[in-house]
């Protein structure tokens, strides 16, 4: 017998434990922040007048925490646990595993430290600024190298379907993240994306949709194909179907992104393409759901007794529901009712709470006793968690369906003579407030269930035997690529050259994209100059304030090609109108009205009073006050740099305009401040962000040099 224990004879479960603990901790934060933003929508007073916890700044924190911190860590825990067993090999390098773990936690912490302070790109689910984007790329490459080297070292010839799902996740997320995040830095925490307007919208929703596909779907399907069979101790219903499920998802998902832009100024054929591919997703998604459910054949009784099975099967059912609803919402006529409303929020949460949440909870109930070598502390508490959580989800999504359909119908309602029945937008919002409270209660129950789980899992860990028992690597038939396993430190370092070479390749790709992409767009922008003028320096500053405060999270800037929209907001938005918008601000949700043509609709003083206290001009408004804008000062010295970068991106600013941009901005600010003061506002506003934001808002829809024809 060997006296020295070779660690490569055992699975690395320490890293899995770390990711499990991180999942639980970040899950708690993600759900708590979600609860706060839900409350803020029900009553605007719940930001307590503090800028860094207003809805516009907290919502990105909630979505990023839920997707990348909670679901992200859960994926890593599940992937590292299941892959080692499926490949019959220890993870290739402890060093890479730990770099991956700590790097990822550092990224999450930096997200939590930047988003509340308004450092955001405003691209949904990709809000993090450029230094953090680079860190994500590096950590993701470390993860990829660690994972692929483990595949190389595997002792099992056949690659189980779960591994295929993980591979697709790793590769596609890398491509999506890099393409969507390409931006030019202005300062350490501010950048402008290279894409603008409709192009930016298309890239963003190509990313956004596939983030759902390859962060929240494919890895979780991989986990499903491992943990359901393990939990019920039965092979998957049809292994053949699982392979078909995988390959068809991989080919179809990537084309469905444009369904986020239906009835917008995106060319019609691209919209139809997105819709057709979305409808095609029905088949593989339901094939996968049925495959997961039927794995229980002959063991259905386990749903009654085993909380792990309860959670996993409910999760798969929610997967089926959400993937039925998704293609349904992609049908143009359904979308015209549902888009910009809470229906979408309900749809997303059926997926996030039901599918991702419950699958993670089930996996945790399975993993924690296994990892700590004990039994679950209380089955009864886990069952209680299940029912409370399920009730929470049902309340949540039903409230959002009701709210979304109500508001969608009210927006479109017309009387016999063709006038809007509810021309006042705020009427359509206050109707939803009771449902927002129902949603809050739903979220509260979901969180309560999770607290029970935290207690249950903690008690499980505490009762565990402190003796360290490690799982030995199972014997396999395949001779691994590197069968000489040495304890020397070089093995833990061998992954690093691979990390560096991949990073070099990425750097080269990004650099080439940088030189290529602006060149692709410039000609279109030059021709647009004759119809649309670029933003004035002050308007550009105001636009950055708009982005910082997350206004796009409640206000769209895209009037759809529907008669009710044109009646309410004016002519449908055109492609040219957002051609200088780096980044685009079309938005995806209307808790407030569309702002694409808000410019010159109200006097400056109206905007001032509205920002100081929205209820002064719109009684019953849900919008929080933004009084700090009247105090925060504009950084005028940054303006020339901002214009210069815009010029590099193809926005036609002349050298003269850039050289004199500070003076131009100060003059425009002084004019607005003077007029505000004349009408009763306090003096001295000319250096504040308030005037910049007003300048920007007054420019919206007023940028065309040639008047737009009403369609």
């Amino acid at each position, binding site marked *: 017998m060997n006296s020295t224990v070779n660690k490569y004879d055992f699975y690395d479960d320490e890293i899995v434990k770390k990711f499990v603990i991180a999942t639980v901790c970040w899950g708690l934060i993600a759900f708590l922040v979600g609860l706060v933003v839900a409350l803020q929508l029900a009553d605007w007073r719940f930001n307590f007048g503090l800028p860094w916890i207003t809805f516009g700044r907290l919502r990105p924190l909630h979505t990023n925490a839920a997707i990348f911190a909670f679901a992200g860590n859960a994926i890593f825990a599940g992937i590292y646990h299941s892959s080692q067993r499926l490949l019959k090999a220890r993870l290739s390098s402890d060093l890479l595993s730990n770099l991956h773990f700590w790097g990822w936690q550092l990224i999450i912490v930096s997200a939590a430290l930047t988003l509340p302070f308004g450092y955001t790109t405003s691209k949904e689910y990709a809000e993090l600024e450029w230094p953090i984007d680079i860190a994500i790329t590096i950590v993701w490459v470390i993860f990829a190298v660690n994972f692929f080297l483990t595949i190389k070292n595997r002792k099992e010839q056949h690659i189980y379907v779960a591994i295929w799902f993980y591979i697709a996740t790793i590769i596609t997320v890398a491509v999506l993240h890099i393409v969507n995040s390409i931006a030019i830095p202005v300062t350490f925490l501010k950048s402008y994306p290279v894409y603008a307007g409709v192009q930016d919208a298309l890239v963003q929703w190509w990313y956004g949709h596939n983030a759902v596909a390859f962060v929240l779907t494919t890895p979780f399907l991989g986990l499903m194909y491992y943990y359901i069979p393990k939990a019920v101790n039965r092979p998957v219903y049809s292994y053949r179907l699982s392979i078909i499920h995988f390959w068809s998802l991989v080919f179809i998902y990537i084309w469905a992104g444009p369904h986020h832009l239906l009835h917008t100024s995106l060319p019609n054929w691209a919209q139809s393409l997105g819709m057709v591919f979305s409808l095609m997703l029905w088949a593989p998604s339901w094939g996968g759901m049925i495959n997961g459910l039927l794995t229980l054949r002959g063991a259905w009784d386990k749903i009654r007794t085993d909380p792990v099975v309860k959670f996993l099967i409910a999760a798969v059912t929610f997967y089926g529901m959400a993937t039925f609803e998704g293609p349904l919402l992609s049908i143009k006529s359904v979308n015209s009712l549902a888009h910009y409303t809470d229906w979408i929020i309900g749809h997303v949460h059926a997926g996030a709470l039901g599918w991702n949440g419950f699958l993670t909870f089930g996996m945790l109930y399975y993993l924690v006793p296994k990892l700590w070598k004990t039994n679950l502390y209380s089955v009864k508490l886990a069952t209680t968690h299940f029912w409370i959580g399920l009730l929470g989800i049902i309340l949540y999504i039903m409230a959002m369906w009701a709210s979304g359909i109500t508001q969608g119908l009210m927006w479109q309602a017309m009387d016999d003579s063709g006038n809007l029945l509810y021309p006042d937008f705020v009427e359509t919002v206050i109707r939803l407030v009771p449902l927002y409270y129902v949603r809050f209660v739903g979220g509260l129950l979901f969180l309560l269930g999770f607290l029970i789980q935290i207690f249950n899992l903690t008690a499980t860990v505490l009762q565990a035997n402190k003796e360290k028992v490690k*799982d030995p690597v199972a014997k396999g038939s395949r001779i691994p690529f590197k069968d000489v396993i040495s304890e020397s430190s070089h093995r833990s370092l061998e992954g690093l050259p691979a990390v560096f070479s991949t990073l070099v390749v990425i750097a080269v790709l990004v650099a080439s994209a940088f030189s290529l992409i602006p060149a692709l767009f410039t000609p279109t922008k030059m021709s647009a100059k004759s119809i649309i003028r670029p933003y004035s320096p002050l308007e550009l500053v105001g636009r950055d304030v708009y982005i910082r405060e997350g206004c796009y999270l409640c206000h769209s800037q895209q009037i759809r090609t529907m008669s009710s929209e044109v009646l309410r907001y004016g002519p449908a938005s055109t492609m040219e109108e957002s051609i200088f918008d780096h980044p685009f601000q079309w938005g995806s949700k209307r808790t407030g009205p569309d702002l694409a043509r808000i410019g010159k609709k109200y006097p400056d003083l109206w905007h001032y009073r509205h920002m100081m206290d929205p209820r002064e001009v719109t009684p019953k408004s849900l919008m929080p006050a933004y009084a700090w804008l009247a105090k925060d000062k504009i950084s005028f010295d940054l303006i020339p740099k901002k214009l210069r970068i815009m010029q590099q991106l193809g926005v036609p600013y002349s050298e003269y305009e850039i050289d004199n941009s500070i003076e131009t901005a100060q003059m425009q600010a002084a004019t607005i401040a003077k007029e505000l003061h004349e009408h009763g506002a306090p003096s001295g506003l000319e250096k504040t962000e308030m005037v910049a934001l007003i300048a920007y808002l007054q420019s919206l829809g007023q940028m065309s040099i040639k008047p737009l024809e009403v369609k």
Partner: protein
Amino acid sequence: MNILFLLIPIATGIGIAGVIAFIYAVRKGQFDDLSTPAYRILVDESERKIDELDSK
């Protein structure tokens, strides 16, 4: 809409990579046996040892 010159090649590229990966996997015999892998994951030597450790 010049962005399509970037997005369509990338999306097609991912698709082609998928086809190549699929053909490669088929040639390597990954899909020759589509019944035993589903059972094999259930037989895990190490976990049998844990069950023995469990005091029931």
